[in-house]
Every structure is written in structure tokens, then in C-alpha cells.
């Protein structure tokens, strides 16, 4: 997870101007612990622990063997497709499931990055949801108009506009922060709701973007065929996996490169760690607050475009009101410690969980349908809780190490 010039994430999380003392110790502690447990070991072990606890819940609530449940969730996520020995119908089904998992992963990566990037600049962007919506709205609009336009160009336009729209929406918060110091938590929460109601207005009955075939149904027009992203795996009609997946992967690379290999990223991180020192160094804090928010918003807006152009094709007021992906993005980013690799894995974890725990993949005998979604909600909650607390494992391993050292103490 760690990159040559930056310490592994986790300490990027402070949303306030850092105080050398407290940071140094509080974070040093976690750092050397992290070094002791070389690399990925800690996250993995904590994940295991998390699933174990979740398993207990299943046992208590359903009285059924949690292993089989997890097996079901795992198969439901389609990850068993990776096992060569899975064959025949199972393989076909696994493929379908995996496509859905990766479909979710695609947008989760992007909304995750939207949160992570802001965090690297010391900003807490709760507004991923709103920025995602704005992105979706614009891509629906572009995608459903300009029918005559040539496909690739049309798609490019839709993506570009959606991305910019997301950037602009987050930019408002960035600007308010930069100019008058408005706390981004307030502004982004408020902007979320403004986005929601604007969306409901646009697609609602009599709204400017409501479809023109069924006058009474509060849904947008479909985007035109040529504006749809190509499905490269699975059935285009049955929501197969579209090439947006690669765009998301590319976004991860971009994120890493921008942060660690560009002057822009340097400025963003400097401001995130210590605005005072950044200012002294000649970096304009305001400018970077704005840039960081705008770039975050761009990721979220792009996520919206991916979903609309990739599989959703339309927006109904209902979708606008009930979507919560932006908030999941917060968990994804933080589980990923705001690092590129981490966000990728976090998104995959959530994609798999969300898809794997869907009722279509769980035995209705074990999971009463009316209870299933709540039960899986609990499991997801627990996993977030425990994966967040890597220190459990670090602590234990740290103990073991210290024990060893004091025995054969080298001078």
C-alpha cells in the first residue's frame, strides 16, 4: 500500500490542521506497527477477523452454519470464477455474478477516489453522492440528446460533461472553503440534497428532462443506443460488464500518479498534511483546496457517467432519491487508507459484498427474504467496523515482537 515517498495511508485521515506533537506520536505508533507487520498482512488478518464476527451474527440470527453462508456470499459474488476447477453451469453463473460484482466495483472505485483525493488534501468530502448524481444527470441529458452524433464522440462528450459537472458541483464546496472558509462537511451535505431535489425536479412529472413517451412516468428518456458503453463480457441486454471497468482501473492509476508524481499532487498532499508549512513553501492553500475538491468531484461525476452509459441508461426520480453509493464511497476510501491500491481492493470488497449478499444469491430458507437485506446490512457494518480497526492485529503482533526483543535484547 505504501509508496516510495509517502507513508502508508491512515495518517492522511486528519481533517484538521495537524499538530506535530499529537500526530507524530499517534501516527508514528501506527506506522512502526505497520512496518513490523510487513505489508498487507494486517489488513488481511483484520478482514478475516471481521468476517469471523459477522459469521457469529449469522449463527445467532439464523442458527445456520456461517461457513455455508459465506460460501454462498462468495459464490454469489462470482469470485469463485477465478478458481479454474469451477466448471460447467457453475462457471456460467459465476461469470454472470462476477460481472455484476465488477459492475458495482467500477463505480465504487470512482466514488471511493472522490472521497480519498479530498482526504489527501485534508478535506472530508461527504458530497460524493451529490457529485455522483450531478454526473448521472448530465450524462443522461447528453446521452439522450444529440441522437445524430457519432457514437464514440457522443460517449466522449457525455463522459466529459458529466466529469466536469461533478467537478463543478464539488468545486462549489471547494470555492466556499477556499474563499470564506466554509467547512466542507456542511457544504457537501447540503449540496447532496440540492442535487437530489434538482434531479427529482428534472425527471419528475412536468420536469424539463422527463421522458416524452410516457407523460405520467417520472423517468428520463433512455440514452441512445450509440451512447452506450460497449459490453466486453457478458450479455449487453442483461447488464454485462462494460468497458467503464477499465476506465475505473485507469482512474486508480491516474490517482496514484497525480498524487505522487506531479507537482499538483505534491501541493495537495503538502496542504493536506500541514497547510501552514505549505503556505510558507509558496503553495497557495486556497488554490489547492479548490483543486482537490474539484478533482474529487470529477471522479464522482465520472462514476455517474459510467453507471448511466454502462448499464442504467436512464434515471427515475426513485433512483435519485434512493441511491446511496456516494456514502459507500466513504467507507471504500477509508478502508483503502486513501491509497490507490487500497481503494481498488476496498471497492472490490464492497462490490462483492453488495452483490454476494443479494437475495438472489442467498438461500431463502436461511435468509428470510424480508430479513435478508437487514441481515446483510449488519454483516457489512461489522466488516467495515473491524477492517477499520487494523490495530487489533497490529497490537497483537506488536506484543509478540516486543516479547521477543526483550528476551534476546541486542544493545
Amino acid at each position: 500500500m505504501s509508496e516510495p515517498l509517502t507513508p502508508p495511508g491512515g495518517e492522511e485521515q486528519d481533517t484538521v490542521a495537524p499538530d506535530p506533537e499529537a500526530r507524530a506520536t499517534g501516527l508514528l505508533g501506527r506506522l512502526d506497527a505497520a512496518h513490523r507487520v510487513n505489508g498487507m498482512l494486517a489488513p488481511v488478518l483484520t478482514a478475516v477477523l471481521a468476517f469471523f464476527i459477522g459469521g457469529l451474527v449469522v449463527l445467532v440470527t439464523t442458527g445456520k452454519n456461517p461457513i455455508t453462508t459465506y460460501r454462498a456470499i462468495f459464490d454469489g459474488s462470482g469470485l469463485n470464477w477465478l478458481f479454474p476447477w469451477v466448471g460447467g453451469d457453475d462457471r456460467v453463473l459465476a461469470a454472470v455474478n462476477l460481472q455484476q460484482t465488477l459492475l458495482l466495483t467500477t463505480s465504487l472505485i470512482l466514488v471511493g477516489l472522490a472521497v480519498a483525493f479530498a482526504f489527501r488534501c485534508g478535506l472530508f468530502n461527504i458530497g460524493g453522492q451529490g457529485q455522483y448524481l450531478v454526473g448521472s444527470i448530465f450524462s443522461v441529458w447528453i446521452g439522450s440528446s444529440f441522437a445524430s452524433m457519432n457514437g464514440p464522440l457522443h460517449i466522449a462528450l457525455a463522459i466529459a460533461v458529466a466529469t466536469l459537472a461533478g467537478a463543478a458541483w464539488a468545486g462549489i464546496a471547494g470555492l466556499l472553503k477556499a474563499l470564506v472558509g466554509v467547512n466542507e462537511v456542511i457544504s457537501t451535505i447540503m449540496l447532496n440534497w440540492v442535487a437530489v431535489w434538482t434531479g427529482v425536479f428534472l425527471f419528475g412529472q412536468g420536469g424539463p428532462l422527463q421522458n416524452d413517451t410516457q407523460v405520467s412516468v417520472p423517468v428520463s428518456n433512455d440514452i441512445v443506443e450509440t451512447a452506450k458503453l460497449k459490453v466486453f463480457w457478458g450479455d449487453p441486454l442483461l447488464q454485462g460488464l462494460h468497458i467503464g471497468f477499465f476506465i475505473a482501473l485507469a482512474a486508480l492509476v491516474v490517482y496514484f500518479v497525480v498524487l505522487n508524481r506531479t507537482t499538483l499532487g505534491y501541493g495537495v498532499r503538502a496542504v493536506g498534511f500541514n497547510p501552514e508549512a505549505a503556505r510558507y513553501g509558496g503553495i497557495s492553500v486556497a488554490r489547492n483546496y479548490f483543486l482537490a475538491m474539484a478533482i474529487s468531484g470529477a471522479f464522482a461525476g465520472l462514476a455517474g457517467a459510467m453507471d448511466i452509459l454502462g448499464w442504467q441508461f436512464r434515471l427515475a426520480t426513485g433512483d435519485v432519491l434512493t441511491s446511496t453509493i456516494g456514502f459507500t464511497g466513504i467507507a471504500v476510501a477509508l478502508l483503502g487508507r486513501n491509497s490507490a491500491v487500497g481503494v481498488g481492493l476496498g471497492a472490490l470488497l464492497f462490490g462483492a459484498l453488495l452483490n454476494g449478499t443479494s437475495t438472489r444469491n442467498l438461500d431463502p430458507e436461511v435468509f428470510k427474504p424480508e430479513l435478508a437485506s437487514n441481515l446483510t446490512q449488519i454483516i457489512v457494518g461489522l466488516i467495515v467496523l473491524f477492517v477499520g480497526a487494523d490495530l487489533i492485529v497490529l497490537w497483537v503482533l506488536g506484543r509478540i515482537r516486543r516479547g521477543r526483543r526483550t528476551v534476546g535484547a541486542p544493545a
Partner: protein
Amino acid sequence: SSAKSEATIKVALITDIGGLNDKGFNALANVGLQTAKKKLKVQGRVFISKSAADYVPNLSAAARGNYDLVIAVGFLMSDSLSAVAKKFPKTKFAIVDVSAPFMKGKPKNVRGIVFAEQEAGYLAGVAAATVSKTGTVSTIGGIKIPPVDAFIAGFQAGAKATKPGITLLNDYSQDFVDQAKCKELALNQIAQGSDVVFQVAGGCGLGALSAAQEKGVWGIGVDNDQSFLGKHVLTSAQKKVDQGVFQTIQLVTTGKFKGGVDGLFSVKNDGVGFGKVSPAAPPTLAAKLASVSAAIKAGKISKIPRLVK
């Protein structure tokens, strides 16, 4: 032999994002499925959609699972269904609140389950106008969608027909879940003189009924019979989605299922109607409503609007 074939019938129910606990049509559809399991000895399974991303996977998973009938609940799934239906031409599909002939590509294996909500609304309107003392009655819609507006339009027509001079208030909570929103709206309407509040907002609407109870005015339930909430529930404008689902399943078990067309559920076939009338209501009310629905059955009352102007 028919008994044997029935036993093997498999039915899947796909909820929309409202989920099974929406106190609205998803829940009722499930009731219909459960009754079918008991009465028609069919196998049934429910697929819950947690987000729009679940529609296609759920529908196609059901189709792949060799279910004989796959029932989608709610117009939100209309487009997803037309795509899936095309892929699985041998599977029978049905969808609540959507008219099959109007679906994209007019799939031949999809049957619409549609309701004449306006008729139920009309009955509610009659009831409201009859008991109203203030001459003001009101409606609270969830989100402005076809079924909701049909209820409201019918209600307003019924009330006007009963008391031409009556004042009608109407608000939308923009929400089907948050009871507080509907309660606030209801309190506001009551403050403006409304003494009968008709809720057309699913779970949110329960807040409206609680406001009616608190302020000692009448409330009217929606979808299922909500008289169990208390004496303050004058009656309920029933939309018997359970009936619709049950009867559609029955069509399959009896081999009479036909796609590409709608099953219209109205007062005529007892698909919509009015629920238990509150014991506290004027004794004549029940009879009055019965006669009005008879008139609707007989076609004496027709052309009830579905759209709120």
C-alpha cells in the same frame, strides 16, 4: 393430473427498491404470492432489489432459475423487464402497475397487472365528502407517479361529485418512507381546516393517519385495509395487488396465462375497492359506498380521471 402440474409451478417475485417492508404494493404482492403458495400449491421465491442495479440481475436470475412465472413489482422495472423478457421468450413475466402494450418492444411474454386506482380513490372521495363537516378534505401523495395521482384524481372527483362546493387540498411528501414528512403535511392541512386526510404515500402516509388520530379528524388508508390502525381510519382505498398477483398466478396454474396484454383490476372484478368502514363513522356510510361501487361496476359512473390537473 392438473394437481400434479400445479405442484411443479414455480413463481418468482421481484420487488423494487421499496423492498418487502414498504407497507405498500411490494408487501401486498408478497401476500398474494404467499396465498398462492398455500391455495395453489405453487413454489414461490422473492428476490429483493436493493438498488436499480439489482433489477436486471434479479429478473434474469429468476428466468435462468426456470421459474414459470416471474412477477416484477412496480413501473421502475418496466424497461429492465422488457430487455430481460426479450432474452427469455419462453419464460412468462408479469409486471405490476405497468401496461404491457405500452412497454418498450411490446414483449409478448409479459402481462401487465394494472389497477383502476381512480375508482378506489373515487370511493374514498365519496366517503370523505360525506363525513366532512368543515367542507375541506385533503390528500397527501408520496411522489407524483401514475398510481398515486390516479388515487388522488379519483378522490377529488368523488368528493366533488358528492359535495360540489367542497375545498380540496393536496400535497406531495416527495417520500414514501419518512413518516414525519407526511405527518407535518397532514398537520398543516388540518390546521387549514381539513377534517378528512387521505394518505396515498405508503409507509410515509402512516404519519398522516397518526396526525389525523392526534387531531381527532378522519384518516383514509390506502393500498391495503388499514382499519387495524384504529377507529380514526374512516375506510381504506384498497388496491388489491395481492389479488392481482394471486389471480395472475392462477392464470398460469390453469394454463390461461396470456402475455402482451393487461389484466385490469377494478371495482368490477374486486381488484380495487373500499376497506372496512370505521365503527365510529355514520352508520349509513357503508351502505352508501356499497351503492356507489355498485354504480361503478354497472358503468353508471365512468370516465373517472387518472391525472391530477
